[in-house]
């Protein structure tokens, strides 16, 4: 009887310790938004505009403009034209624009790209995990990454069409360092 009681106590203690461990793990593994100047969170995502995947690590050595968008997002439609024009202007300087389609249906995303003549590489973040790692709260949001893979410039929340100065400062910062 004494052994049984002891076993019960050990099991109960182990259960409480397990739950406590889960709580600690959850608290310590919560994603924190990256800081400007810090490393850009990596990803490897399925491409929407073509087959295969695109990894951010494969773009190391190139300045990157990372734009989170979705086909259901109205402001994203408003900035699509400007982003494509900027891509046409900066791609000869080595800047890579990457669209990250957020919480979207693949077919809708492809139609959006066709409708707005987007030609830069676009990947799909259907689950939103990559957006979470960047601290994206709503689309559109745009980040600038320098050749060394660090976040630079300003993190633009909302459409870049309304924040063109910040956008071009971001591209310049990504190019400059």
């Amino acid at each position, binding site marked *: 009887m004494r052994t049984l009681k002891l076993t*019960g106590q050990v099991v109960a203690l182990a259960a409480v310790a397990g739950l406590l461990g889960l709580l600690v793990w959850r608290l310590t593994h919560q994603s924190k938004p990256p800081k400007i100047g810090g490393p850009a969170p990596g990803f490897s995502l399925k491409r929407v505009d073509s087959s295969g995947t695109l990894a951010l690590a494969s773009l190391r050595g190139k300045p990157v403009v990372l734009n989170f968008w*979705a*086909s*259901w*997002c*109205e402001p994203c439609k408003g900035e699509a034209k400007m982003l494509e024009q900027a891509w046409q202007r900066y791609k000869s300087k080595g800047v890579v624009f990457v669209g990250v389609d957020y*919480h*979207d*249906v*693949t*077919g*809708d995303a492809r139609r959006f790209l066709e409708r707005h003549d987007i030609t830069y590489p676009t990947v*799909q973040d*259907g*689950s*939103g*995990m990559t957006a979470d790692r960047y601290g994206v709260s*709503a689309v559109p949001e745009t980040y600038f990454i320098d050749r060394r893979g660090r976040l630079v410039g300003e993190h633009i929340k909302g459409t870049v069409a309304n924040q063109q100065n910040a956008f071009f400062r971001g591209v310049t910062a990504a190019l400059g360092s």
Partner: protein
Amino acid sequence: MIVRIAVVLVAALVLAGSAAAACPTPHTSLSKLEGEIMCPTCHTTLDQSDAAAAQRIKHHIQVLIAQCRTEKQIKADLVANFGAGILAAPPHKGFDLLAWWLPLGGVIAGAIAVAFGVWRWSRSRGPDEEPPGSGLDEETEQRLDELLARLD
């Protein structure tokens, strides 16, 4: 503007008509699935959300229903697009089974623990247990008995 709206309405009617013709007896309905699918941006089920993403997913589900897809096929399509988090309840397979069985296991373990405690408690108060002594020595007890007898 009015002409544009009219064109869109006609197109929608034609599409709706062709969809209905494509699947005269749908396997499931949007109202059923709305409570089982999450809105990825607002973290509620679709039936409780009017967010743009939720509206888009509802439309996508309607298109799939019109294509005569089954509930299972529709959920598989949504998981392929949005990941397993799009489902309100975890699937009954693999690691996700834990989410179903762990709470049940906890309830069963709790019930067993309570039953065991009750059983032990009832045994400790059993009829064969000797009543506790008065704590008096034999002589004092004898005197007390005599005194009580006189009182009677």
